[in-house]
């Protein structure tokens, strides 16, 4: 880890500003699945960093490529995949703007390296030929050349380059073949003068007919060149990928495999991640304890232990789950399975007005809505994308689990239906299903009202299956978790400190002991706020102490547990299995002696947590992704309203039916 951090730090200053030496900027473009990311990883190794493009929400991956020993390494920008310069999705728009030098505050690239999949020449050359026609310096990297060598396909790269007027370098990124030749080709391209960028986009054309004819002409040109320089494969015979698809997208096996894959992912996230999670939890509580014993008691120590350490620990505790989820998503994406999942589920998604491409973001959201919402960028239609973002938080994410676990441990533990099925497991399953059902209904309504749009086209490449590369998976894990830690981490840390302050002020005076801690909470700003909202939440079965928990959980759901621990003064042990908190909840009495917490209260609270948008990180990411405060504000409002109504119905309805 520290070695990686060092490498990253080492590359963070822009080399063009260090020592004034001119360093080249190289844009790496290509169709989706053309092997661009593998090439990028091979060129830059660990000298990468992830940052946001200025002014937009998509993160840019850039890295350093040592072109020649005597010159400073070039900066390579890995662009999102695109099929043409006529962009249809947000990802593609960003890539196009950078390629054409239209991105504000980003210099026009000196050289564009286009990754062209050698096994799919004609279609890949469409983008390459558009880029060549813009008049910029272009070098073509002919990727996956090992596959060409293994197949019957024969490509004369030199002749292809002559016909196109640019260098064409066959590469095998994984085996680092052809990388030196690629450097030389880039350096050679730099000797050519470059004119102003010519616009070649079809959107320049006056009408659809002339757009079509221009596009057909370009394809005819490419087909002529390819037939002169390559011997085509026989596409009448099903290839290897298609044979795999006979099983993977089979009428019966397909859905079964999809279910098994989802089950495996969930199993991993929910049970195998527990060990590292509790380990992190223990490390941080031990750290807090040792700080408390070694520093004098006081406000600074409180801030450190309850604010900073608890906040950082709270974020890091989610890292194992997020890493595991990303590990699976990377493997599923890299292998080509994700596109099949979208293929299998499109018909179902369409029933609620969504797109097969919404499946992956929604699946991700079961771990955490933040990466799920980030994954909606591949959805071309903006209204579909917003609808997917709006329902993503209904997928019951991992932050709700501690709440479910606590409630079940307190009120439903040991209960069985029919002697074998545990009530707790049924309730958790019910929560997941309820979340999905609400999401379906909300999407259905939104797509018919505020996000009304004609059914979007579903045109999606099914990339050839390939063995996921461990290097690519590791790179993607590293960059995605860094983004998560930076985005979610900073917000949650800030909120934890703020919350700590709300609970710690105004000071009650006396030095903190267990008893006075509860008094401190009662009189703090948070305690007063809890009492203020008590009339509003009483119909849901909640008292002011739960109110404090609700308020604090608007930062992040899981904070309710540590808040309840403080309110019920069971110490700082925020472990969900802590029997002390469970006992405290069971024994809590109202003024009239009736218990505060009943199974019905627990159920009402779980439903509230399922439906309310209590997550600052989600709000922050929606703000970034939709580029406005309107959508996040709308999301928080409607989800809160929904949560209130549902909890109200649960609690009051339960009472009417005679439950308690």
């Amino acid at each position, binding site marked *: 880890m520290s070695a990686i951090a060092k490498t990253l730090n080492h590359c963070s200053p822009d080399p063009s500003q260090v020592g004034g030496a001119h360093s080249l900027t190289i844009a790496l473009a290509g169709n989706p699945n053309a092997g661009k990311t593998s090439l990028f990883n091979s060129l830059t190794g660990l000298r990468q960093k992830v940052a946001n493009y200025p002014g937009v929400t998509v993160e840019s991956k850039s890295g350093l490529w040592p072109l020649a020993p005597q010159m400073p390494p070039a900066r390579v920008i890995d662009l999102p995949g695109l099929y043409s310069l006529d962009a249809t999705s947000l990802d593609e728009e960003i890539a196009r703007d950078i390629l054409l030098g239209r991105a504000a505050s980003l210099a026009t690239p000196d050289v564009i390296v286009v990754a062209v999949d050698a096994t799919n020449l004609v279609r890949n050359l469409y983008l390459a030929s558009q880029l060549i026609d813009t008049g910029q310096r272009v070098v073509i990297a002919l990727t996956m050349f090992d596959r060409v060598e293994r197949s019957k396909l024969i490509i004369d790269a030199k002749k292809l380059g002559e016909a196109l007027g640019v260098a064409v370098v066959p590469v095998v990124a994984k085996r680092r073949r052809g990388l030196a030749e690629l450097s030389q080709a880039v350096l050679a391209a730099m000797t050519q003068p470059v004119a102003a960028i010519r616009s070649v986009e079809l959107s320049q054309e006056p009408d659809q007919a002339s757009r079509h004819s221009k596009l057909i002409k370009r394809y005819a040109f490419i087909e002529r060149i390819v037939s002169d320089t390559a011997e*085509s494969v026989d*596409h009448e015979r099903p290839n290897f990928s298609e044979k795999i698809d006979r099983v993977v*997208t089979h009428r019966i096996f397909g859905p079964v495999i999809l279910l098994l894959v989802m089950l495996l992912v969930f199993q991993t996230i929910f049970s195998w991640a527990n060990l590292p999670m509790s380990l992190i939890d223990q490390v941080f509580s031990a750290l807090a304890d040792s700080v408390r014993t070694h520093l004098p008691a006081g406000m600074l120590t409180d801030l450190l232990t309850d604010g900073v350490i608890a906040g950082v620990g709270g974020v890091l505790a989610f890292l194992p789950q997020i890493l595991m989820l990303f590990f699976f998503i990377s493997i599923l994406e890299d292998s080509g399975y994700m596109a099949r999942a979208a293929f299998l589920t*499109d*018909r179902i998604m369409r029933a609620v007005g969504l797109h097969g491409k919404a499946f992956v973001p929604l699946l991700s959201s079961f771990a955490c809505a933040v990466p799920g919402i980030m994954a909606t960028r591949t959805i071309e239609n903006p209204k579909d994308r917003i609808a997917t973002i709006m329902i993503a938080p209904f997928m019951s994410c991992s932050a709700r689990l501690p709440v479910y676990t606590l409630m079940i441990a307190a009120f439903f533990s040991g209960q069985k239906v029919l002697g074998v099925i545990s009530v707790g497991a049924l309730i958790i399953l019910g929560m997941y299903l309820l979340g999905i059902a609400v999401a379906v209904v909300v999407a259905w309504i939104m797509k018919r009202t505020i996000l009304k749009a004609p059914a979007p086209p*579903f045109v999606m*490449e099914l990339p050839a299956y390939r063995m996921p590369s461990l290097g690519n998976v590791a790179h993607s894990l590293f960059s995605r978790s860094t983004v998560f830690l930076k985005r979610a981490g900073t917000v949650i840390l800030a909120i934890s400190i703020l919350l700590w302050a709300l609970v710690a002020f105004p000071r009650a005076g006396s030095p903190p002991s267990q008893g006075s801690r509860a008094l401190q909470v009662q009189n703090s700003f948070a305690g007063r706020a809890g009492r203020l909202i008590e009339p509003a939440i009483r119909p849901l079965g909640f008292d002011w102490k739960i109110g404090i928990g609700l308020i604090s959980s608007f930062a992040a759901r899981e904070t309710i547990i540590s808040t309840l621990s403080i309110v019920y003064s069971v110490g700082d042990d925020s472990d969900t299995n802590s029997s002390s908190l469970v006992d405290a909840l069971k024994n809590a009495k109202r003024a009239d002696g009736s218990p505060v917490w009943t199974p019905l209260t627990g159920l009402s609270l779980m439903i509230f947590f399922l439906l309310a948008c209590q997550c600052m990180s989600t709000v922050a990411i929606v703000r970034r992704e939709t580029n406005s405060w309107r959508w996040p504000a709308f999301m928080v409002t409607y989800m809160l309203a929904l949560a209130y109504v549902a909890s109200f119905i649960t609690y009051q309805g339960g009472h009417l039916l005679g439950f308690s």
Partner: protein
Amino acid sequence: MTLDMVPKNVMARVTSVAATDAHSLRLMEMGVVPGAPVRVVKAAPLGDPIHVCVRDYHLALRRAEAKSITVTLHDSSDPD
């Protein structure tokens, strides 16, 4: 005949793509232009979308989109 009507594993060739909708450009950019060889591989378990092989790669599209693609069948039809 349009692409949605082509039986499985029969080679066909694109003759035209309807210029009506915006998505026709996306289809054409992806190589579905007049003259391109296409073959329907299968339909998804629920009947839609369909999986086709265009040129040297595989593409999924809905029947609604496939309707906008006109094709002619090859003379040497069945590959098996």
